[in-house]
């Protein structure tokens, strides 16, 4: 495993796409700092913004990094010289996670360098910062696990890249819809504000489109399993449910990777 990790790191160092994505990350960080008005936004928001898009960038990089092993046939070299398939799978996954974390780190450092003088300092407590870091790492691992699963099991580099990107977009729209469902109001209220500026409710009507209990439960479940919703949670500086933010991601990561390793063990390689 250690040998494979060393080989993967060497390959990564020589990979132009990887360096190009790091440059893109720097540009994104500078653009994000420049885009926001210092009066409305704190440094916390700026630092957690990138986690919203990281799933998209990871989709590209993971499918390129692993897909190229299939396209160039180099995956065969590892098996022929006697490496275990589980080691090959895990070493690729670890490198992808490393790439994801490194991109996030680069973003944070650049955003800090350019934004420290513009925005108010970080408002979060040390404890919250710690939780956010763990959550962010878990989100990155979730994305990497999903994309590695697809790319390791589907040997066509181009198609697996397309699948990963489409999957990210599907997750994005799905996640947005789920949030709309979960945040739907059960009642509509009509209000007016009197001369003293006090708000009065005049009418309460039930929302005819309010989702059923079943629909809400399904939405809750989807919300819990989608990494994009964890990204939104982090980016919106929300404190999510402990189970949803930590336990579910760990379970999902475990299930996807165990399944991936098992299937890869029996995959016929060409």
């Amino acid at each position, binding site marked *: 495993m250690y*040998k494979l990790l060393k080989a993967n790191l060497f390959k990564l160092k*020589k990979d132009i796409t990887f360096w190009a994505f790091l440059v893109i990350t720097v540009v994104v960080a500078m653009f994000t700092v420049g885009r926001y008005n210092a009066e409305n936004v704190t440094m916390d928001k700026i630092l957690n913004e990138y986690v919203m898009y990281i799933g998209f960038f990871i989709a590209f990089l993971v499918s390129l990094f692993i897909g190229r092993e299939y396209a160039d046939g180099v995956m065969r070299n590892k098996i022929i010289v006697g490496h275990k398939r589980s080691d090959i799978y895990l070493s690729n996954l670890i490198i992808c996670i490393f790439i994801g974390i490194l991109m996030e780190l680069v973003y944070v450092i650049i955003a800090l360098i350019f934004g420290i003088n513009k925005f108010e300092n970080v408002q979060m407590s040390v404890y919250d910062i710690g939780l956010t870091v763990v959550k962010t790492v878990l989100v990155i691992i979730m994305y990497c696990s999903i994309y590695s699963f697809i790319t390791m099991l589907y040997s066509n580099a181009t198609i697996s890249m397309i699948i990963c990107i489409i999957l990210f977009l599907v997750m994005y729209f799905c996640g947005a819809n789920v949030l709309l469902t979960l945040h739907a109001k059960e009642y509509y209220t009509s209000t007016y504000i009197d001369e003293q500026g006090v708000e009065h409710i005049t009418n309460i009507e039930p929302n005819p489109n309010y989702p059923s209990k079943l629909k809400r439960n399904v939405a809750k479940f989807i919300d819990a399993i989608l990494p994009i919703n964890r990204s939104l949670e982090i980016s919106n500086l929300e404190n999510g449910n402990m189970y949803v933010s930590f336990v579910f991601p760990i379970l999902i990561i475990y299930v996807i990777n165990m399944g991936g390793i098992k299937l890869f063990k029996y995959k016929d390689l060409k």
Partner: protein
Amino acid sequence: MEYILETNNLEKKYKNFKAISNFNMHLEKGAIYGLIGKNGAGKTTFIRIICGLQKPTKGTYKIYNVLNNNKNIINVRKRIGAIVETPSIYLDMTAIDNLKEQCKIIGLPGINEIEEILKLVGLSETGNKKAKNFSLGMRQRLGIAIALIGHPDLLILDEPINGLDPEGIVELRELILKLNIEKGITFLISSHYLDELSKIATHYGFVSNGTIIKEISSAKLQNECKIKTQISVSNVKECVKYLEKMKMSYDVASENIINIYGKVNISDLAVNLSSQNCIINEFQEKEETLESYYINLMGGNKNV
């Protein structure tokens, strides 16, 4: 006999299609084994199984006496280098970087070895040129160089001369012979370029419809493919008597046709047979090539 690779009724099924079945082959140490068969005969499937890329659906194989379902097979594979179909190289890397990557995969420090191997395969002058700008022959040689990292005892080459120009074919042939003689590396080479294979192989395995239909050594094959003179005579009995007396190698092909193997002085033969009341009506000199041997083995042109 010490075999470094042997298979026992190996079978690989893809859904309802049997790519190979009852596949039995034996590879001796130090041999250059030519696996001959038409496209789709099952050569590549067999190589993929041996290299661990695919699992057999039935049967077993042994590499260096270790069975495929033994956990130790992973360690034994470290003694193998292979090129399956196309050379497995990173096209965006230079030759040196490709070899460095392979050294890291195997866990070797490698710098000295890299230079030596690049020299051996004739790629030491490629410098910063990336593999994507290499010719097919250079890529093939780089593939072999990668396979040579870690000093394998067995090199498996699947269709190594596909797409090579004549010069590339000669270079590759010389490289294989050099590695076999100087480093004692055993080769398993699959190809459908029969004549090319006949220049280097010491053993052959003929594959048809997913099965090895014949294994033969080069020496035996040469014997079977030797020059023969086919004569049509008026009196086969007398002719046979004369050939026996002269201790010549022959076989009777039909009522009046005899095949004589080895060099024959046809005018002496005609004079001597004529004195025995036997006249040669027709004669033809034939040399059976590997190709014609293969075609006959496969049951004629329509099956090849």
